[in-house]
């Protein structure tokens, strides 16, 4: 890649205050996103993976500015080639870029308005962006439905007439209505049945190639993330602990948490024995994270240094970053 990245996130932080008592005094902060840096190049998929509460959803919502970040920069390269910072931008100015960054939601049942037909559901972003003629919108919606593999005649029906997989296609059609450049997909297949999940993953891959889309793909399922992503970022308690090209990450993880996460995934083959070395303990609370490395209380390789000194995200191999004092020195098995 010689071009500048489409999005460059620097030092992104989002703290939610904990308020207590009658006076609503702030007694602490939930450090949901605690210094996240990554870049997204045009046409690639970055998978953001982690367990619940790791901040992956909050980070993705900050990029959409559905949540206002506490600190950090979100540098976006516009169509004209100039770079703007979305993080401090006022809503009025932001409206100009809203069409270019769209979202696909997890719940295909909750994210469509049940009282609007597909034409109105999928066409709403077009209306908002100034396509006033209903006929023009109908033409565009017909094209969009065809694009996601649904019949254009369906546009006069209501969402309840569709199955989960079809609804997710409708959600994707709506996200694509404004011809976005970046699509943020938050757990887009986790609510779907196994036999339908593959169809939606294939559709996302196909659309990316046809429309040169960039995806930020947020999910908890390692197998799904591995399947769809060019690069993967693993998050733990609000921080990226490892970021690498997909194959490098899965064949040679450099952070003990990544390796543990992979080992925890049950292999769909009864001839493979269950992995030993189950990770002990629980994910710490982002309101009260441990000292030093956030992973040290659960880490099988922890040294005294880990409890006092917080490691930085370092580049160990080209494009392969890990937040561990001993990254590269540990013998960690990949998948």
């Amino acid at each position, binding site marked *: 890649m010689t071009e500048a990245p489409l999005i460059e996130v620097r030092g992104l932080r989002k703290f939610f205050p904990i308020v207590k008592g009658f006076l609503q005094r702030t007694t602490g902060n939930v450090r949901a996103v605690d210094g996240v840096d990554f870049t997204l190049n045009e046409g690639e*998929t970055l998978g953001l993976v982690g*367990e*619940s509460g790791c901040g992956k959803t909050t980070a993705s919502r900050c990029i959409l500015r559905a949540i206002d970040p506490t600190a950090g920069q979100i540098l976006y390269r516009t169509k004209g080639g100039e770079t703007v910072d979305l993080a401090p931008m006022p809503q009025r100015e932001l409206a100009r870029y809203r069409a270019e960054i769209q979202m696909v939601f997890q719940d295909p049942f909750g994210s469509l308005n049940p009282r609007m037909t597909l034409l109105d559901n999928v066409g709403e972003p077009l209306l908002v962006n100034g396509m006033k003629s209903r006929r023009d919108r109908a033409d565009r919606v017909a094209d969009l439905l065809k694009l996601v593999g649904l019949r254009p005649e369906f546009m006069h029906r209501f969402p309840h007439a569709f*199955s*989960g*997989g*079809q609804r997710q296609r409708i959600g994707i059609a709506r996200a694509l209505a404004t011809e976005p450049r970046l699509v943020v997909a938050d757990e887009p297949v986790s609510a779907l*049945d*196994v*036999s*339908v*999940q*593959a*169809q939606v*993953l*294939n559709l996302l*891959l*196909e659309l990316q190639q046809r429309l040169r889309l960039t995806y930020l793909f947020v999910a*908890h399922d*390692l*197998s*799904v993330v*591995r*399947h*769809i*992503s*060019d690069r993967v970022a693993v998050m733990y308690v609000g921080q990226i602990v490892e970021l690498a090209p*997909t*194959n490098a990450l*899965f064949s040679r993880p450099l952070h003990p948490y990544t390796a*543990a*996460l*992979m*080992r*925890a*995934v*049950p*292999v*769909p*083959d*009864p*001839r*493979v024995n*269950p*992995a030993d070395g*189950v*990770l*002990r303990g*629980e*994910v710490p609370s982002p309101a009260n994270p441990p000292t030093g490395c956030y992973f040290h209380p659960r880490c099988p390789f922890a040294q005294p240094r880990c409890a006092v000194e917080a490691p930085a995200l370092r580049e160990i191999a080209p494009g392969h970053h890990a937040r561990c004092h001993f990254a590269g020195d540990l013998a960690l098995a990949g*998948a």
Partner: protein
Amino acid sequence: MPTDPPLLQVKDLRVTFGMDEGTIRAVDGTSFDVHPGEVVGIVGESGCGKSVTMKAILQLVERPGRLASGEILFRDRQGTQTDLAKLDPRGPQMRALRGAEIALIPQEPMAAFSPVHTVGAQIIEAIQLHATQEGRRVSKAEARETVIGLFRDVGISMPEQRVDAYSWQLSGGLRQRAMIAMALSCKPRLLIADEPTTAIDVTTQAQVLALLRDLRAKYNTAIIFITHDLGVIAQMTSYVVVMYLGRVMEQGPVDQIFHAPAHPYTRALLRSIPTIHGETRTPLPVISGSLPHPFNRPTGCPFHPRCPEAMPGCATATPKLLPVAERQSAACFLHHQEAEP
């Protein structure tokens, strides 16, 4: 290969739901056996009837659901078989079995515990109740000691303090462990785990699965493991029942199901899951179409509209579930010609 007589035999179970719009056949002729100490997996997608089957075994099917026909034979400690389907769901016999002999680990431990009682109090209640039913008396202090012991067994740290915690004070993993402790409190011989790890994170899931494996080895409890996750099925079970739209498509030993699946649905399901080892960013083989709505059930074999190997006869006749190999049966005309009457 188990040699003991089966602990539970489900024979041609049918559960229907009479709705205003028509009758839904949620479970449509399911048969399988569970042997002592065996882990049987029931796998399928939404609406396949796996949870309703579990509810039928416990006689917990709610109206408008109804056990239309079939037998659920449970062998008690003396070796006599009782047909649970014939018992009154609210009667003393069924109530004595539920919790004591057959226990349930539900999917949502948050919803299963009462938020206004401590988890300890809820487990103590179950222990005392079932002891009374058997004509024994267990004091509250004794029951409490048992609960602390169970908490220690299932890996809850500081069990003396956690007994007095409310469910909402516990994390997801701890809550699920407390639920498992509750299910084990009366030393059941059959444990039904309904998607026990679906709501929890993958590292916690690994802990819970390891715990269930240990407990099965320790107490020789038979487990029916209901899940949609083929990875969990492969790692946990020894015998697998594959269901689709209320019917058993295929059942057999876990190795056969994964390495020599006989039914096109099983084969398609196994191919369509992304794995942690496969090719990346390439199209996955898919099962075409979507799951039919229960009111629009296809005629004949329920899978035929989506089946890559469908033949003309599949739309008109429903194949019987018949043996295709040692302990393995499939309901498919690729293997035999016998249709349901």
